[in-house]
Protein backbone atom coordinates (compact mmCIF):
# COMPACT_ATOMS: atom_id res chain seq x y z
CA UNK A 1 0.00 0.00 0.00
CA UNK A 2 0.95 3.65 -0.31
CA UNK A 3 1.95 5.27 2.98
CA UNK A 4 1.38 8.97 3.48
CA UNK A 5 1.76 11.54 6.23
CA UNK A 6 -0.17 14.75 6.72
CA UNK A 7 1.51 17.97 5.72
CA UNK A 8 2.02 20.53 8.48
CA UNK A 9 -1.17 22.49 9.04
CA UNK A 10 0.57 25.78 8.30
CA UNK A 11 1.49 24.53 4.80
CA UNK A 12 -2.07 23.38 4.13
CA UNK A 13 -3.49 26.69 5.37
CA UNK A 14 -1.17 28.63 3.07
CA UNK A 15 -2.33 26.62 0.04
CA UNK A 16 -6.05 26.97 0.60
CA UNK A 17 -6.39 30.35 2.27
CA UNK A 18 -7.49 32.25 -0.88
CA UNK A 19 -10.56 30.00 -1.22
CA UNK A 20 -13.79 30.28 0.71
CA UNK A 21 -15.61 27.03 -0.10
CA UNK A 22 -13.36 24.04 0.46
CA UNK A 23 -14.06 20.38 -0.17
CA UNK A 24 -11.85 17.87 1.63
CA UNK A 25 -11.70 14.49 -0.07
CA UNK A 26 -10.35 11.47 1.79
CA UNK A 27 -9.31 8.14 0.33
CA UNK A 28 -10.41 5.05 2.22
CA UNK A 29 -7.85 2.51 1.09
CA UNK A 30 -4.06 2.84 1.47
CA UNK A 31 -3.88 6.16 3.32
CA UNK A 32 -6.73 5.09 5.58
CA UNK A 33 -4.64 2.09 6.60
CA UNK A 34 -1.68 4.38 7.25
CA UNK A 35 -3.97 6.63 9.33
CA UNK A 36 -3.33 9.74 7.29
CA UNK A 37 -6.11 10.16 4.73
CA UNK A 38 -9.14 8.02 5.54
CA UNK A 39 -12.54 9.11 6.78
CA UNK A 40 -11.37 9.78 10.32
CA UNK A 41 -8.37 11.82 9.27
CA UNK A 42 -10.47 13.78 6.78
CA UNK A 43 -12.86 14.73 9.58
CA UNK A 44 -9.95 15.63 11.86
CA UNK A 45 -8.43 17.90 9.26
CA UNK A 46 -11.79 19.50 8.44
CA UNK A 47 -12.37 20.38 12.10
CA UNK A 48 -8.79 21.59 12.51
CA UNK A 49 -9.00 23.83 9.42
CA UNK A 50 -12.34 25.19 10.58
CA UNK A 51 -10.76 26.21 13.89
CA UNK A 52 -7.53 27.48 12.38
CA UNK A 53 -9.31 29.79 9.97
CA UNK A 54 -11.63 31.01 12.71
CA UNK A 55 -8.67 31.80 14.96
CA UNK A 56 -7.23 33.76 12.04
CA UNK A 57 -10.50 35.71 11.78
CA UNK A 58 -12.14 33.99 8.79
CA UNK A 59 -15.07 31.61 8.60
CA UNK A 60 -14.80 29.19 5.69
CA UNK A 61 -17.37 26.82 4.24
CA UNK A 62 -15.57 23.49 4.76
CA UNK A 63 -17.15 20.26 3.58
CA UNK A 64 -15.81 16.74 3.56
CA UNK A 65 -16.30 13.51 1.71
CA UNK A 66 -14.39 10.28 1.22
CA UNK A 67 -14.16 7.77 -1.58
CA UNK A 68 -12.99 4.18 -1.61
CA UNK A 69 -10.13 4.86 -4.03
CA UNK A 70 -9.16 8.25 -5.38
CA UNK A 71 -6.78 6.78 -7.96
CA UNK A 72 -9.65 5.09 -9.84
CA UNK A 73 -11.75 7.43 -11.92
CA UNK A 74 -15.02 5.54 -11.50
CA UNK A 75 -14.93 6.30 -7.79
CA UNK A 76 -14.61 10.03 -8.43
CA UNK A 77 -17.95 10.69 -10.08
CA UNK A 78 -19.66 11.65 -6.81
CA UNK A 79 -16.74 13.88 -5.88
CA UNK A 80 -16.96 15.73 -9.18
CA UNK A 81 -20.57 16.54 -8.35
CA UNK A 82 -19.75 17.71 -4.82
CA UNK A 83 -16.79 19.74 -6.08
CA UNK A 84 -19.08 21.79 -8.30
CA UNK A 85 -19.94 23.85 -5.21
CA UNK A 86 -16.34 24.23 -4.06
CA UNK A 87 -13.75 26.91 -4.86
CA UNK A 88 -10.94 24.46 -4.17
CA UNK A 89 -10.46 20.81 -3.27
CA UNK A 90 -8.03 19.46 -0.70
CA UNK A 91 -7.20 15.82 -1.32
CA UNK A 92 -6.02 13.47 1.41
CA UNK A 93 -4.98 10.81 -1.09
CA UNK A 94 -1.52 9.82 -2.28
CA UNK A 95 -0.01 11.70 -5.21
CA UNK A 96 -1.73 9.36 -7.67
CA UNK A 97 -5.13 10.10 -6.13
CA UNK A 98 -4.54 13.85 -6.12
CA UNK A 99 -3.64 13.77 -9.81
CA UNK A 100 -6.59 11.58 -10.78
CA UNK A 101 -8.90 13.98 -8.98
CA UNK A 102 -7.26 17.01 -10.59
CA UNK A 103 -7.73 15.41 -14.01
CA UNK A 104 -11.45 15.11 -13.27
CA UNK A 105 -11.73 18.73 -12.13
CA UNK A 106 -10.18 20.84 -14.89
CA UNK A 107 -11.55 24.12 -13.53
CA UNK A 108 -11.11 23.57 -9.79
CA UNK A 109 -7.74 23.82 -8.02
CA UNK A 110 -6.83 20.58 -6.23
CA UNK A 111 -4.24 20.63 -3.44
CA UNK A 112 -2.47 17.78 -1.61
CA UNK A 113 -2.93 17.51 2.15
CA UNK A 114 -0.48 14.63 2.44
CA UNK A 115 3.12 13.93 1.61
CA UNK A 116 3.25 10.57 -0.14
CA UNK A 117 6.05 8.62 1.49
CA UNK A 118 6.51 5.11 0.12
CA UNK A 119 5.11 1.69 -0.75
CA UNK A 120 5.12 -0.21 2.48
CA UNK A 121 3.49 -2.47 4.99
CA UNK A 122 1.85 -2.02 8.37
CA UNK A 123 4.56 -3.69 10.44
CA UNK A 124 2.91 -3.02 13.80
CA UNK A 125 0.08 -0.81 14.95
CA UNK A 126 1.29 2.73 14.25
CA UNK A 127 4.45 1.61 12.44
CA UNK A 128 4.73 1.52 8.67
CA UNK A 129 7.87 0.37 6.92
CA UNK A 130 9.04 0.92 3.37
CA UNK A 131 9.59 -2.39 1.65
CA UNK A 132 9.18 -1.82 -2.09
CA UNK A 133 10.76 0.74 -4.42
CA UNK A 134 8.73 -0.32 -7.46
CA UNK A 135 11.99 -1.02 -9.30
CA UNK A 136 10.16 -2.85 -12.10
CA UNK A 137 12.29 -5.98 -11.86
CA UNK A 138 11.47 -7.87 -8.68
CA UNK A 139 14.24 -9.91 -7.06
CA UNK A 140 12.29 -11.21 -4.08
CA UNK A 141 12.27 -14.77 -5.41
CA UNK A 142 16.06 -14.83 -5.13
CA UNK A 143 16.38 -13.16 -1.74
CA UNK A 144 13.95 -15.07 0.41
CA UNK A 145 11.14 -12.53 0.07
CA UNK A 146 13.18 -9.67 1.57
CA UNK A 147 14.04 -6.78 -0.73
CA UNK A 148 17.67 -5.67 -0.60
CA UNK A 149 16.96 -2.74 -2.93
CA UNK A 150 14.58 -1.21 -0.40
CA UNK A 151 15.58 -2.58 2.96
CA UNK A 152 19.36 -2.41 2.63
CA UNK A 153 20.26 1.27 3.10
CA UNK A 154 22.81 0.93 0.30
CA UNK A 155 20.63 -1.23 -1.92
CA UNK A 156 23.37 -3.86 -2.16
CA UNK A 157 22.65 -6.93 -4.25
CA UNK A 158 25.30 -9.38 -3.06
CA UNK A 159 25.61 -9.44 0.69
CA UNK A 160 26.06 -6.90 3.44
CA UNK A 161 28.51 -4.03 3.59
CA UNK A 162 31.07 -3.91 6.37
CA UNK A 163 29.03 -1.54 8.49
CA UNK A 164 26.48 -3.87 10.04
CA UNK A 165 26.91 -4.46 13.80
CA UNK A 166 25.07 -7.06 15.87
CA UNK A 167 22.40 -7.41 13.22
CA UNK A 168 21.78 -3.67 12.91
CA UNK A 169 22.35 -1.47 9.88
CA UNK A 170 25.01 1.20 10.31
CA UNK A 171 22.53 4.01 9.56
CA UNK A 172 21.44 3.63 13.19
CA UNK A 173 24.78 5.20 14.11
CA UNK A 174 24.07 8.31 12.05
CA UNK A 175 20.76 9.14 13.71
CA UNK A 176 18.40 7.74 16.30
CA UNK A 177 15.83 5.51 14.63
CA UNK A 178 13.09 3.85 16.69
CA UNK A 179 12.77 0.93 16.29
CA UNK A 180 16.27 0.55 14.84
CA UNK A 181 16.83 -0.60 11.26
CA UNK A 182 18.01 -4.17 10.88
CA UNK A 183 20.62 -5.32 8.37
CA UNK A 184 18.52 -6.54 5.44
CA UNK A 185 21.24 -8.94 4.36
CA UNK A 186 21.35 -10.59 7.76
CA UNK A 187 17.58 -11.03 7.50
CA UNK A 188 17.99 -12.49 4.00
CA UNK A 189 20.62 -14.90 5.30
CA UNK A 190 18.45 -15.98 8.25
CA UNK A 191 15.42 -16.41 6.04
CA UNK A 192 17.24 -18.48 3.41
CA UNK A 193 18.81 -20.52 6.20
CA UNK A 194 15.41 -21.35 7.65
CA UNK A 195 14.14 -22.23 4.16
CA UNK A 196 17.16 -24.48 3.59
CA UNK A 197 18.11 -22.37 0.58
CA UNK A 198 21.46 -20.86 1.57
CA UNK A 199 22.89 -22.16 -1.69
CA UNK A 200 21.08 -19.27 -3.39
CA UNK A 201 23.73 -16.98 -1.97
CA UNK A 202 26.47 -18.83 -3.83
CA UNK A 203 25.35 -17.40 -7.15
CA UNK A 204 26.17 -13.69 -7.39
CA UNK A 205 23.36 -11.53 -8.71
CA UNK A 206 24.24 -9.73 -11.94
CA UNK A 207 24.18 -5.93 -12.17
CA UNK A 208 20.58 -4.80 -11.91
CA UNK A 209 18.72 -3.57 -14.97
CA UNK A 210 17.59 -0.17 -13.75
CA UNK A 211 15.91 0.68 -17.06
CA UNK A 212 12.75 -0.92 -15.68
CA UNK A 213 12.78 1.52 -12.75
CA UNK A 214 11.98 5.21 -12.55
CA UNK A 215 15.18 6.29 -14.29
CA UNK A 216 13.54 6.08 -17.70
CA UNK A 217 10.75 8.61 -17.14
CA UNK A 218 7.13 7.94 -16.22
CA UNK A 219 6.37 4.24 -16.51
CA UNK A 220 3.24 2.69 -17.91
CA UNK A 221 1.65 -0.70 -18.14
CA UNK A 222 -0.42 -1.43 -21.21
CA UNK A 223 -2.66 -4.49 -21.35
CA UNK A 224 -4.29 -4.84 -24.76
CA UNK A 225 -6.88 -7.29 -23.44
CA UNK A 226 -8.05 -4.71 -20.90
CA UNK A 227 -8.22 -1.77 -23.30
CA UNK A 228 -11.57 -0.37 -24.48
Amino acid at each position, binding site marked *: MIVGTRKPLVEILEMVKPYHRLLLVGCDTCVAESASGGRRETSELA*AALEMAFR*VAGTDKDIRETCVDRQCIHEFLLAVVEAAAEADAVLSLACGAGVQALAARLPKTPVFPALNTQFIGETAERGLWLENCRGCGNCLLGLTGGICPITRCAKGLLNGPCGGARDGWCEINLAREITPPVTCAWLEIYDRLHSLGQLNRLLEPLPPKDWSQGDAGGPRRVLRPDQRP
Partner: protein
Amino acid sequence: METLIKVVLLACEQACPRPQLWIKPLAEAGLKVRMVQEPCSSKVEVFQLLRLLARSADLVWVVACPEELCRLCEGSIRMERRLAHAQDYLEEIGLERERLGLSLLAAEDEAGRGKVIDTIRAQAQSLGINPGCRQPSAGKE
Protein backbone atom coordinates in the same frame (compact mmCIF):
# COMPACT_ATOMS: atom_id res chain seq x y z
CA MET B 1 -24.29 36.36 21.82
CA GLU B 2 -23.87 33.51 24.30
CA THR B 3 -21.04 34.14 26.76
CA LEU B 4 -21.28 31.10 29.03
CA ILE B 5 -18.24 28.87 28.83
CA LYS B 6 -19.28 25.57 27.27
CA VAL B 7 -17.85 22.33 28.63
CA VAL B 8 -18.49 18.94 27.03
CA LEU B 9 -17.73 15.85 29.08
CA LEU B 10 -17.18 12.61 27.18
CA ALA B 11 -17.60 10.08 29.92
CA CYS B 12 -17.14 6.36 30.07
CA GLU B 13 -20.39 5.14 31.62
CA GLN B 14 -18.43 2.74 33.81
CA ALA B 15 -16.52 5.67 35.29
CA CYS B 16 -19.47 8.10 35.40
CA PRO B 17 -22.68 6.14 35.96
CA ARG B 18 -24.46 9.18 37.47
CA PRO B 19 -24.04 12.22 35.21
CA GLN B 20 -25.71 14.65 37.66
CA LEU B 21 -22.81 14.22 40.08
CA TRP B 22 -20.70 15.96 37.45
CA ILE B 23 -23.12 18.27 35.72
CA LYS B 24 -24.63 19.90 38.82
CA PRO B 25 -21.45 21.25 40.47
CA LEU B 26 -20.05 22.48 37.16
CA ALA B 27 -23.33 24.17 36.22
CA GLU B 28 -23.44 25.79 39.66
CA ALA B 29 -20.03 27.28 38.87
CA GLY B 30 -21.59 29.07 35.89
CA LEU B 31 -20.51 26.69 33.15
CA LYS B 32 -22.75 25.32 30.42
CA VAL B 33 -22.21 21.58 30.69
CA ARG B 34 -23.12 18.70 28.44
CA MET B 35 -22.20 15.11 29.20
CA VAL B 36 -22.06 12.46 26.50
CA GLN B 37 -21.93 8.99 28.00
CA GLU B 38 -19.81 6.49 26.10
CA PRO B 39 -19.71 2.72 26.54
CA CYS B 40 -15.93 3.10 26.91
CA SER B 41 -13.44 5.91 26.32
CA SER B 42 -12.02 3.76 23.53
CA LYS B 43 -15.03 4.92 21.48
CA VAL B 44 -13.86 8.53 21.56
CA GLU B 45 -12.05 9.48 18.37
CA VAL B 46 -9.72 12.38 17.59
CA PHE B 47 -12.09 13.84 15.01
CA GLN B 48 -14.88 13.94 17.61
CA LEU B 49 -12.70 15.87 20.04
CA LEU B 50 -11.71 18.39 17.38
CA ARG B 51 -15.20 18.67 15.95
CA LEU B 52 -16.62 19.43 19.39
CA LEU B 53 -14.08 22.20 19.86
CA ALA B 54 -14.78 23.55 16.39
CA ARG B 55 -18.56 23.58 16.75
CA SER B 56 -19.80 23.57 20.31
CA ALA B 57 -17.24 23.52 23.10
CA ASP B 58 -14.70 25.72 24.79
CA LEU B 59 -13.32 22.79 26.76
CA VAL B 60 -13.70 19.05 26.19
CA TRP B 61 -12.93 16.64 29.01
CA VAL B 62 -12.78 12.87 28.73
CA VAL B 63 -13.42 10.82 31.84
CA ALA B 64 -12.18 7.25 31.57
CA CYS B 65 -11.60 4.34 33.91
CA PRO B 66 -8.19 3.80 35.51
CA GLU B 67 -6.11 1.56 33.29
CA GLU B 68 -6.41 -1.45 35.57
CA LEU B 69 -10.21 -1.15 35.59
CA CYS B 70 -10.72 -0.59 31.87
CA ARG B 71 -12.98 -3.34 30.56
CA LEU B 72 -11.31 -3.18 27.18
CA CYS B 73 -7.92 -3.60 28.89
CA GLU B 74 -6.19 -0.84 26.98
CA GLY B 75 -9.02 1.58 26.20
CA SER B 76 -7.74 4.20 28.64
CA ILE B 77 -4.13 3.99 27.47
CA ARG B 78 -5.08 4.46 23.85
CA MET B 79 -7.43 7.29 24.78
CA GLU B 80 -4.50 9.11 26.35
CA ARG B 81 -2.52 8.77 23.12
CA ARG B 82 -5.39 9.91 20.93
CA LEU B 83 -5.91 12.88 23.18
CA ALA B 84 -2.23 13.82 22.81
CA HIS B 85 -2.60 13.56 19.02
CA ALA B 86 -5.60 15.91 19.12
CA GLN B 87 -3.65 18.27 21.38
CA ASP B 88 -0.84 18.37 18.80
CA TYR B 89 -3.43 19.59 16.31
CA LEU B 90 -4.49 22.34 18.74
CA GLU B 91 -0.90 23.44 19.06
CA GLU B 92 -0.60 23.69 15.27
CA ILE B 93 -3.78 25.74 15.18
CA GLY B 94 -2.50 28.08 17.88
CA LEU B 95 -4.97 27.01 20.56
CA GLU B 96 -4.15 25.85 24.07
CA ARG B 97 -3.53 22.11 24.48
CA GLU B 98 -5.40 22.38 27.78
CA ARG B 99 -8.70 22.80 25.94
CA LEU B 100 -8.67 19.00 25.86
CA GLY B 101 -8.34 17.11 29.12
CA LEU B 102 -8.49 13.56 30.42
CA SER B 103 -9.00 12.06 33.84
CA LEU B 104 -8.84 8.42 34.78
CA LEU B 105 -11.22 7.82 37.63
CA ALA B 106 -13.10 4.95 39.25
CA ALA B 107 -16.86 5.46 39.66
CA GLU B 108 -16.72 5.15 43.44
CA ASP B 109 -13.81 7.58 43.91
CA GLU B 110 -15.73 10.55 45.37
CA ALA B 111 -12.66 12.50 46.50
CA GLY B 112 -11.07 12.02 43.10
CA ARG B 113 -14.24 13.19 41.39
CA GLY B 114 -14.27 16.37 43.48
CA LYS B 115 -10.67 17.12 42.49
CA VAL B 116 -11.35 16.53 38.79
CA ILE B 117 -14.43 18.78 38.91
CA ASP B 118 -12.32 21.50 40.56
CA THR B 119 -9.68 21.10 37.84
CA ILE B 120 -12.27 21.27 35.03
CA ARG B 121 -13.87 24.37 36.59
CA ALA B 122 -10.54 26.13 37.05
CA GLN B 123 -9.29 25.19 33.59
CA ALA B 124 -12.50 26.26 31.84
CA GLN B 125 -12.53 29.59 33.64
CA SER B 126 -8.86 30.25 33.03
CA LEU B 127 -9.04 29.39 29.29
CA GLY B 128 -12.34 31.19 28.68
CA ILE B 129 -14.12 31.25 25.33
CA ASN B 130 -12.55 29.16 22.58
CA PRO B 131 -11.72 31.46 19.64
CA GLY B 132 -11.75 28.45 17.32
CA CYS B 133 -15.35 27.54 18.15
CA ARG B 134 -18.25 28.43 15.90
CA GLN B 135 -20.37 31.06 17.60
CA PRO B 136 -24.15 30.49 17.76
CA SER B 137 -24.84 33.32 15.31
CA ALA B 138 -22.52 31.77 12.73
CA GLY B 139 -24.82 28.83 11.96
CA LYS B 140 -26.43 25.76 13.37
CA GLU B 141 -24.47 23.12 15.28
